[in-house]
């Protein structure tokens, strides 16, 4: 049987000796892992042993695609960066939109594995079968946009897709990102510093080939139908107009707009961070990622004020939160400027904002003093100061050097109980949700493989009251509790099933939007499409896909087990479990994590005491082989 969708090739570059190697993609991987995250966890588990220093030559960085990357399936242009994470020391992955992954497929490869460490700065150039390491000393120190333009010019080809790190990645800022297409960030967990530690400034890809699916006519028709479903979906159309800014007002209304470092969920100045306010004043164009008919990206221009002249895409809702409400800043232009700096210098806007928020709150409580900050009086709502701190982090300059380590490490080195103000799980800063007003995300933040993650299991259906969808997915008998944001009951069911569907999403790879929200495509749609794309009949059943998802989720857990993660680490900052939400519709709420964790482990087949996969589960998912790599 010939496989559709895949190239059947893994490209490896060994930076230490400058060699390239093309390995065949093991056929056995396809049925068990599909692609994307699945291939990534398999390879990383086997090849990066427990205890490896993420910033050492022994760590590896994987750029992954899936079987439908580069085809016309809606929103299938996404790419994943996978590595052991410098920010957390555990499983790390970061997905990004843009055009990189499809180009890698057109060049003829399914994955790129970056190994070893170069002696001096290089960039990796891939043009079909032409593979080379190019000198990049002249680019070291330059921003991601300069680097991108420079590489395109050097090779006289505007269609090269570049993934670049900025000065933050070079300086090993723990939450450094990789940037593609100027403003799309593989932001979380510090993938940029992995490349920085390997002396890789950029990866430049150009491919002239194509992707052949198994049944072209059938797939093409199905893809067109799928695009129509996106185009006709009213929520997707709204999303196309407002992007993720649509969330600000919703979050404020339900009292879940993280404000003052997650102290509260209500922000008086929220209006200036809403789509209604921003779009007519700042937006100059709408853009999309590869193959996307929704188009959530907005390019914006600031005409007046201290940040006049800023032309930049974004930020997403998370950026509005991280540099807006969370720092008490009611000014869109500041968030755009922060986004620009994060993109150019290569940093994750969520972790950057949260680490600054941590510092401000610690300062307010006398745990950080002017002696630490070099005379800066940290305060909420100070726009210029927030931007200044961000620049100091990118440069690892003075106080910025401490913050560049992320909130967990910074709190540890300050001591004096500073950890109380560091909002992270397993070292990853908490994203723009709050378990107190949305219980299922409390569980999601606590259990996700990479730390406080909003992308692997965030249930939207419960919070936004999609009763019919909830009944269809989880059974009408679980209503109304399962969509009640203030109760722990049934939340593990919703989280596990969503995590499974999103896991398949991340193996394909498709975008969060259209799967996670609005709820357009789900498991049954993937089960219908995948056999056309790949020819693998096994993918044609939701049951089989669910088993693959369980396998991949459990493997990430086994990866983290090697690093010492157990139930004890599946925790939330005390703020969410002990400090009641002070105001708003969720006033008085806290998260009771333990009953949800019990349910979650039970559904996953993980031990209730340790939170680790049981022997039986390991056997059921055919993961005995992992024991040889413990």
């Amino acid at each position: 049987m010939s496989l559709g969708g895949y190239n059947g090739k893994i490209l490896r570059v060994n930076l230490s000796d400058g060699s390239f190697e093309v390995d065949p993609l093991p056929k056995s991987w396809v049925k068990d892992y599909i692609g994307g995250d699945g291939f990534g966890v398999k390879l990383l588990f086997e090849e990066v042993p427990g205890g490896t220093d993420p910033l050492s030559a022994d760590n590896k960085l994987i750029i992954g695609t899936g079987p439908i990357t580069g085809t016309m399936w809606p929103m299938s242009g996404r790419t994943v960066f996978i590595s052991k994470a410098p920010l957390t020391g555990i499983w790390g992955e970061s997905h990004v939109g843009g055009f990189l992954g499809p180009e890698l497929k057109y060049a003829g490869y399914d994955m790129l594995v970056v190994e070893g460490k170069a002696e001096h700065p290089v960039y990796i150039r891939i043009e079909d079968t032409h593979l080379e390491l190019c000198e990049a000393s002249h680019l070291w120190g330059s921003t991601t946009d300069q680097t991108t333009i420079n590489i395109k010019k050097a090779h006289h080809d505007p269609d090269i897709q570049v993934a670049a790190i900025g000065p933050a990645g070079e300086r090993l800022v723990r939450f450094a990102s990789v940037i593609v297409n100027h403003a799309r960030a593989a932001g979380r967990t510090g993938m940029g510093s992995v490349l920085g530690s390997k002396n890789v400034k950029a990866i430049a890809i150009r491919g002239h080939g194509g992707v052949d699916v198994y049944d072209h006519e059938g797939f093409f028709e199905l893809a067109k139908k799928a695009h129509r479903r996106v185009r006709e979906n009213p929520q997707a159309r709204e999303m196309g107009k407002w992007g993720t800014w649509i969330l600000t007002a919703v979050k404020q209304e339900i009292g879940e707009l993280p404000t003052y470092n997650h102290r509260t969920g209500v922000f008086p100045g929220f209006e200036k961070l809403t789509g209604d306010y921003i779009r007519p004043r700042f937006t100059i164009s709408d853009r999309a990622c590869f193959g996307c008919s929704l188009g959530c990206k907005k390019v914006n221009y600031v005409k007046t004020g201290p940040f006049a002249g800023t032309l930049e895409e974004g930020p997403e809702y998370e950026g509005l939160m991280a540099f807006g409400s969370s720092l008490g800043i009611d000014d869109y232009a500041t968030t755009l400027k922060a986004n620009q700096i994060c993109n150019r210098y290569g940093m994750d806007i969520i972790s950057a904002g949260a680490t600054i928020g941590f510092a401000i709150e610690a300062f307010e409580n006398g745990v950080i003093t002017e002696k630490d900050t070099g005379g800066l009086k940290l305060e909420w709502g100070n726009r210029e100061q927030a931007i200044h701190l961000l620049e100091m982090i990118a440069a690892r300059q003075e106080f910025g050097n401490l913050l560049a380590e992320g909130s967990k490490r910074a709190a540890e080195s300050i001591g004096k109980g500073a950890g109380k103000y560091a909002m992270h799980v397993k070292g990853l800063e908490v994203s723009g949700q709050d378990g107190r007003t949305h219980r299922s995300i409390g569980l999601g933040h606590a259990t996700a493989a990479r730390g406080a993650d909003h992308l692997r299991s965030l249930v939207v259906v419960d919070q936004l009251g999609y009763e019919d969808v909830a009944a269809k997915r989880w059974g009408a008998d679980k209503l109304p509790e399962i969509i009640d944001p203030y109760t722990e009951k049934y939340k593990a069911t919703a989280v596990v099933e969503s995590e499974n569907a999103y896991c398949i999403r991340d193996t394909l790879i498709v975008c969060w939007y259209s799967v996670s929200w609005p709820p357009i495509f789900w498991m049954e749609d993937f089960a219908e499409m995948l056999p056309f794309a790949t020819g693998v009949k096994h993918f044609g059943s939701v049951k089989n896909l669910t088993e693959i998802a369980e396998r991949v989720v459990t493997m990430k857990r086994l990866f983290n087990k090697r690093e010492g993660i157990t139930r004890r680490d599946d925790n939330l900052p005390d703020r969410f479990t002990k400090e009641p939400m002070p105001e708003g519709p969720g006033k008085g709420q806290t998260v009771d994590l333990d009953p949800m964790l019990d349910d979650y482990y039970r559904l996953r087949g993980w031990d209730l005491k340790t939170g680790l996969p049981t022997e039986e589960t390991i056997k059921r998912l055919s993961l005995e082989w992992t024991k040889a790599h413990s």
Partner: protein
Amino acid sequence: MLILPSQLVVDYTKCTGCRICELACTAKKEGRFQPSLARLKIVRYDDLGIDLPNVCGPCETAPCVDICPVYAIRRDPISKMTFLDNDRCILCKSCVGACVNGVILLDTKRMRIIKCDHCGGDPECAKACPTGAISYSHVSVAPSLDRHDKISSYLREIERTAQESGGAE
């Protein structure tokens, strides 16, 4: 004055740069997904947030027709669409250089010229475009002059912002 019946009409302000049109084009014409062989091309300026669809036509005087030494590219007398007669083509590549929209290609693998034929009057790209940035409709010369104006003002804007930001693609 030549009256052009239906043509591919572009409104670049609507284009999001998703390249679904390139995918749909090659899905139909090549039986696979291969944007490098698409009969149209989206030029994306990531740093300016601008995307420009380049399609075949509308050309009142078509340089490809004029330049072809063996009359392999001609204009259909009824649809006015310019088309390539592969049997006559000697692969001299003159048309590739002459096309003002840069959408005539030489496929070096299979050694053939690739040129848009408006899908015989039912263009796949226009059907696939989710934003209406490409449509297939009747144009007179006026809109294409209009298009020229728009693009010039656009280029001026690119230059201006490039100078402001101190470097552009």
